[in-house]
């Protein structure tokens, strides 16, 4: 279908605010790319630049090797699904889906077959005559999806399409979107701040922060080898534990807390101070009490399938989170001895936040 390429794309809003600081990106044909990042980091801005709803201040965006910087949104052959659906309230659902096709001069019969096909896929056949306001949120979302797929565009753009739905529906729609995208094979860019959506949908994940792409990679890559402390803290829930540490003289150990030495699985330049990161799910309780660190239980959250234990390590309060399978009981103040596997330790430069 199509590739999308960004070359040093920048966006400065008319008020002088620079929302996107030069992003390079090459989205492959049929790839599902997810943009994730904290609120205000420029996800929507970037998506809207691809759509043509925001001008590109500097750099280039191309769809299929054609630079689209100056191409009108309607001519870019993209379709977008908005967070609030953005359906046309005065048209029934059939017309909502048919509108884009009519403006592109398709024949009546052609439009009818495309709309009915989309309605069938999205189970909207019974609702075509209704107006959007007569539908539930989930159904409206489907109509918005239908409006995008009837056009068979080169690229789908989604801006937090599920964030107005309740939790259960969100899971259903998430699977549906993934299925649909794989079936149609349309190159897609999806904006979300939901971790689970990001991890499950993405072929490739882009973690954004303050207008730059902090890391681009497969979800698993990013989870296993976060390039920066920001990415490490943003991806994964509950967030990664961060502790201050210092590399030993022999380059093979890191010292945390009051003289706790942890083995490292690779050599690191000696004597530098670092941030040590450990994911809550990689900590485990040493059965024999011979773990590397000891920490006191502060609070316990039981979620049924898993238990989150918040611990005080060293002199800091509540600085270590432990994630355990199943339901387990702990007493407040109880000392736990924890094991940290050497290959699960992440080290970050204190100053730059870069992975070491």
């Amino acid at each position, binding site marked *: 279908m199509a590739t999308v390429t960004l070359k040093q794309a920048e966006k400065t809003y008319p008020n002088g605010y620079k929302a996107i600081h030069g992003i390079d990106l090459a989205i492959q044909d049929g790839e599902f790319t997810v943009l994730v990042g904290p609120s205000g980091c420029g996800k929507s801005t970037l998506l809207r630049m691809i*759509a*043509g*709803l925001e001008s590109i201040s500097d750099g280039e965006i191309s769809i299929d090797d054609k630079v689209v910087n100056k191409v*009108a*949104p*309607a*001519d870019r052959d*993209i*379709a*977008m699904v*908005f*967070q*609030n659906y*953005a*359906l*046309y*309230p*005065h048209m029934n659902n059939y017309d909502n889906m048919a*509108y*884009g096709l009519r*403006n592109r001069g398709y024949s009546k019969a052609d439009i009818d077959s495309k709309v009915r096909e989309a309605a069938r896929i999205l189970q909207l056949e019974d609702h075509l005559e209704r*107006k959007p306001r007569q539908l539930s949120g989930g159904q409206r979302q489907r109509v918005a999806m239908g*409006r995008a797929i009837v056009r068979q565009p080169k690229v789908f753009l989604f801006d937090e399409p599920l964030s107005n739905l309740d939790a259960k529906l969100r899971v259903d729609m998430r699977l549906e979107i993934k299925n649909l995208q794989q079936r149609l094979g349309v190159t897609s860019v999806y904006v979300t701040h939901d971790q689970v959506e990001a991890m499950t949908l993405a072929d490739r994940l882009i973690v954004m922060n303050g207008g730059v792409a902090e890391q681009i990679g497969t979800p698993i890559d990013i989870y296993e080898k976060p390039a920066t402390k920001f990415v490490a803290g943003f991806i994964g829930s509950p967030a990664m534990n961060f502790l201050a540490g210092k590399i030993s003289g022999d380059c093979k150990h890191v010292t945390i807390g009051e003289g706790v030495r942890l083995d490292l699985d690779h050599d690191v330049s000696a004597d530098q101070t670092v941030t040590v990161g450990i994911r809550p799910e990689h900590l485990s309780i040493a059965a024999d009490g011979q773990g590397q660190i000891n920490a006191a239980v502060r609070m316990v959250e039981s979620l049924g399938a898993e238990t989150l234990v918040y611990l005080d390590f060293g002199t800091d309060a509540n600085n270590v989170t432990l994630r355990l399978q199943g339901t387990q009981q702990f007493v407040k103040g109880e000392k736990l001895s924890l094991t940290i596997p050497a290959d699960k330790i992440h080290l970050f430069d204190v100053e730059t936040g870069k992975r070491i």
Partner: protein
Amino acid sequence: MKRVQFEHSAVPYLFVAPQILIISIFFLWPAAQAVYQSFLLEDAFGMSSQFVWFRNFEDVLSSSSWTRSAVFTVVFSVLVAVISITLSLFLAVRADEVIRGAKSYRTMLMWGYAIAPPVAGLLGNMMFNPLMGDLYKAFNSFGFEFNHIQNANDATFVVILIAVWKQVSVNFIFFLSGLQGIPKSVQEAATLDCKSAERRFWTITFPLLAPTTFFLLVINLTYAFFETFGIIDVSTKGSPGGATATLVYKVYVDGFIGADLGGSSAQSVLLMIMVSVLTVFQFRFIERKVHY
């Protein structure tokens, strides 16, 4: 469905009493009087009167001056409503592109609304004054033989111009807030679906403004019917020869200046009937079509 039952008590009636009283004194009572008077023939000094059934109505309906005024009123109202709505819609669309979100701007643009009709009439009067009016001079210097004092068409043009000018700002504000009430994402979805801005306007923006337009149509027709009294009274006074007298203005002229109370009451009763029919028509047939 179960209906909520209120205990019978005098309190609710007490609350609505002031409003009922005002409506009764200033509307129902005069209206009833007008109906009563429309059946009477009174001598010019109000000394004696005689019950004449529908003779006043027959006189009114067969008089050429009333028919002329009725035709003028319809033409005038339709033109004022259509021109001021079209013009203000155009202005609002252009302004909306520039000032999305800038509220202070909007408030300033609204000031024209505060001008009372007689003041608008006075301003118009000055601009069209044959001795010193700039517009009067301008039209004549372009080669039109413009003379609204003697030419009925020119006079009609003047009252329409003033009436439209006065009303455009009100319509503009309503259209502008109507436009700003259209979600930005809906307009953006439309830019992805339709390349032509003009087509987008007619297929998305205009239908979404239909409730506003309908509301303004009602407001503007009412305005042209009734509120332009002040404009006409100050500018043309219905001249030349009643060519710019709306029905409302004619009621006043015949009743208070001509002292034909019976005839003028009959005219106002006819006016009431016409307005009621118009209102019912608007709400029954148009309103149903404009809401989405």
